[in-house]
């Protein structure tokens, strides 16, 4: 995509206006073009309600220029007169066909079929019956599976809270001033691109009974805290949580860094000059500016957290005694190890409903906030 020449325009700088003709010629994306032209017009002294489609701008007493402001973004380009063919043919209509077939097949048809299987006792071979809600009754009567639901939620919320707190702290720490912030960002993002399974093996070693973690505890005189971490009914789920958090924090940090980049340093400086402390600046300047980042980071985190699978299989395999089973591992075990396709689908349906529920809930909350703000 041709890069737009985004010029550092500020309100009040009159030199901006003569540059507009140049800008309008470059192939910038529609939204940017309007923003830039409007900014330049503001810079040249126009008021909001004066920025119209066509206008004459006086740059100085001897120079005037007629400018065309592109119409607002978000709308489709002006419709062709009905019945007339477009200027050229953009590709062929059947180019969309493979995508439509694959998306309907892999996403819609498969999901609907899975939703149907959830109410049957199908085992993959032979006959099956429609058994109504029996599968779900069985899920909510089985303590192991209820535990799996609980573990799923624990890992999702635990990882979201920890990665967001750590990621935001780290982003704030390296956001401004640090000379090596790009190197730090690259280093901290590195675990994100690695395979979760591979990362889990590294942590499996660390959590071994004769591994580095217990070695460290012994070295600082905390022998009584040493445990068989991955075989401990209480602590094994925490071990998985730490593994996940270690890998995902860099991702959350990058989202927050992108959000923090939108906070103008001038605003922060102004707040500091007006006597706002670190907390005050964080609460009243930074948090409002990074709200969209918070929404994205928590939504993605919850969705990913609810699906954690690889790390559990590598670290504990669901043990000890089912203490680290989640819905994802149970879907795999019931459907693919035990061949209970109907029951496995019912578990997958529960997981799907939870994921969709949280996704929609989160959308609802963030929208509410924006309304409240506006």
């Amino acid at each position: 995509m041709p890069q737009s020449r985004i010029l550092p325009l500020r309100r009040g700088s009159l030199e901006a206006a003569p540059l507009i003709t140049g800008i309008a010629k470059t192939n910038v994306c529609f939204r940017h073009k309007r923003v830039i032209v409007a900014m330049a017009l503001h810079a040249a002294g126009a008021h909001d309600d004066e920025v119209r489609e066509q206008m004459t701008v006086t740059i100085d007493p001897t120079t005037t220029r007629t400018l065309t402001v592109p119409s607002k973004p978000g709308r489709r380009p002006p419709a062709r007169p009905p019945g007339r063919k477009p200027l050229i043919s953009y590709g062929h209509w059947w180019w969309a066909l493979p995508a439509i077939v694959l998306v309907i097949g892999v996403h819609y048809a498969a999901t609907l079929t899975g939703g149907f299987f959830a109410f049957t006792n199908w085992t993959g071979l032979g006959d099956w019956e429609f058994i109504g809600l029996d599968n779900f009754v069985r899920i909510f009567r089985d303590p192991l599976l209820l535990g799996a639901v609980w573990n799923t939620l624990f890992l999702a919320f635990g990882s979201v809270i920890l990665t967001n707190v750590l990621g935001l702290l780290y982003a704030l720490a390296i956001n401004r001033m640090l000379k090596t912030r790009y190197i730090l960002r690259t280093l901290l993002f590195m675990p994100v691109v690695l395979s979760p399974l591979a990362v889990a093996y590294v942590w499996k070693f660390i959590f071994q009974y004769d591994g580095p973690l217990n070695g460290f505890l012994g070295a600082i005189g905390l022998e009584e805290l040493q445990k068989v971490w991955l075989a401990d009914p209480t602590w094994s789920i925490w071990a998985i949580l730490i593994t996940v958090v270690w890998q995902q924090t860099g991702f959350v940090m990058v989202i927050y860094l992108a959000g923090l980049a939108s906070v103008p340093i001038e605003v922060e400086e102004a707040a500091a000059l007006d006597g706002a402390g670190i907390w005050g600046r964080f609460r009243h300047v930074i948090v409002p500016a990074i709200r969209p980042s918070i929404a994205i980071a928590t939504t993605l985190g919850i969705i990913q957290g609810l699906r954690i699978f690889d790390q559990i299989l590598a670290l504990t395999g669901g043990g000890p005694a089912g203490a680290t089973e989640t819905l994802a591992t149970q879907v795999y075990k019931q459907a693919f190890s035990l061949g209970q396709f109907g029951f496995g689908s019912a578990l997958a349906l529960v997981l799907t409903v939870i994921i969709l529920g949280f996704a929609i809930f989160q959308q609802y909350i963030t929208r509410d906030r924006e309304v409240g703000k506006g």
Partner: protein
Amino acid sequence: MFRYTKATAVREALVWLVTLIGLLPLYILVVTAFKTDQEALTTSAIAPPTSLDFGAFIEVLTTTGRNSIPMSILNSVIITAGSIFGLVLLGSVAAYVIARRTRRWTNATYYLVLIAIILPAQLGTVPLYIGARSVGLTGNAIGMILLWIGILLPLSVFLYASFFRGLTTEYEEAAVIDGASPTQAFFRVVLPLMSPATGTVAILAGLIVWNDFFNSLIFLGGSTTQTLPVAMYTYVGGLVSAWNKIFAVVIISMIPILLFYMFAQKRFIQGFAGGLKG
């Protein structure tokens, strides 16, 4: 107002300290992989090896049989490359038609794709497996590539469509007026302009496919075609505490991704942050 002061230098040093502690697991990973069997068992985890020992790597890379690591690397490369190729090809043409032709059906298709991004994939796994098994697409690379194209196409179409909407139509119009066919105009003129979108799609899809364990485990399980994560899982399952060998496999699985990451880390970070927002 905000200047680089002594306090900033202290903060920078502290952040480095925290980062290095945070990356200790990777250090442990590397030093352990280069230890001999004996050393790996007896020495401290953070002690560097007395001499660089490639024994573990050689042993891992000379495994044979169903879960041979070299074969699984080849399979992973084929599946990842095939999926990226399909996602770029099918995703870009579909997105082009969706973005450029403003008909009712193209809008409907766009929403079909958007909803598919949000729809969780878990529920579809069982029916997809049954369907793939019944037509012989489980246990081979072609089935896996098709599956990945299907799973990730919504993401690809969505990314391409938003890039196309930001690109003026003048390029392809000029090309067509100069005598190019619509197909030529797209592949010779428009697609080359889309290299940032192609890069994002390739990075995201490449990472997801290369690192995937769940889908390969299900759709390739028990066959002779294994991807690297599944082969690693099986191989590690057969080793008891031979951590130097386990870590040699782990490092081998990380090297390709890390190489790409070093060369294009900015693209990676932006692509990841931007792409997954959709």
